[in-house]
């Protein structure tokens, strides 16, 4: 606090900072929507890399396929699909709000839970189908 000749500055109440709030699922899911969006922004380069490799040559494409076929590459793809599905479901949640619906506290809580649980279940389902069909 800066002091002047007039004395100490008046102690005025500050508006509450973000960190004093108890973390809630709804606010966590709000920032998660943004974080997953930014992650997809970066991750999209992998998709472009894959297409460019296929357009390039057999040997280069085989190298890229081997990378994504490796367990580490598969974990990246699994994470990518979860982030994508999570962001997509979050987007649908925003559509509901855009329609002016789902603002009751109970609805908000229900939707954020459905978003999180749904994204995990759909991701697992997607990969079960992917492995089931391909093997």
């Amino acid at each position, binding site marked *: 606090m800066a002091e002047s000749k007039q004395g100490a500055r008046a102690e005025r109440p500050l508006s509450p900072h973000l960190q004093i709030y108890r973390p809630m699922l709804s606010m966590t899911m709000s920032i998660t929507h943004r974080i997953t969006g930014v992650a997809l922004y970066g991750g*999209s380069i992998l998709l472009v890399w894959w297409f460019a490799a296929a357009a390039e040559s057999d040997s280069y494409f085989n190298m890229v396929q081997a990378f994504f*076929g490796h367990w580490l590459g598969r974990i990246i793809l699994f994470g990518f699909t979860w982030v994508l599905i999570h962001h*997509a479901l979050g987007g649908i949640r*925003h559509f509901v709000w855009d329609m002016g619906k789902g603002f009751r506290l109970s609805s908000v809580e229900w939707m954020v839970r459905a978003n999180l649980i749904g994204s995990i279940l759909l991701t697992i389902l997607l990969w079960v189908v992917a492995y089931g069909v391909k093997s």
Partner: protein
Amino acid sequence: MIIDPGMKTPLKKVKGFGAAKSGTDHFWQQRATAVANLPLVGFMVGFVIYHLNSTRADVIASLHHPVVALLLIMGLASVFWHMRLGLQVVIEDYLHTHLTKFTALALNIAYATSLFAVAAYSILKMSFAP
């Protein structure tokens, strides 16, 4: 819209589309691409997962079908535009000094459009390949 000159209201300012001079355009484009992304990205994910263990010849064979190539290119256009709009909001929220902000906004457009160009060119090259 005809406005009675004697009834100047804040609408006069609104018709200038606000500080960004673009009104609600950004919001609508974000939502429109979001809706388009749902089916188009679904198709794209299906395509990539279908070709997880494919050879290059398999991928090229799929892309020979014009509908497949077109759906992928349209999906990429929608995705990269949506992405550019989304990161613009993030940049505007967190960067406040003019030079940094405008540099970031320009790089954002460059990144999204470049990735789209590379992906679309790659798909067309394979689709047209004999």
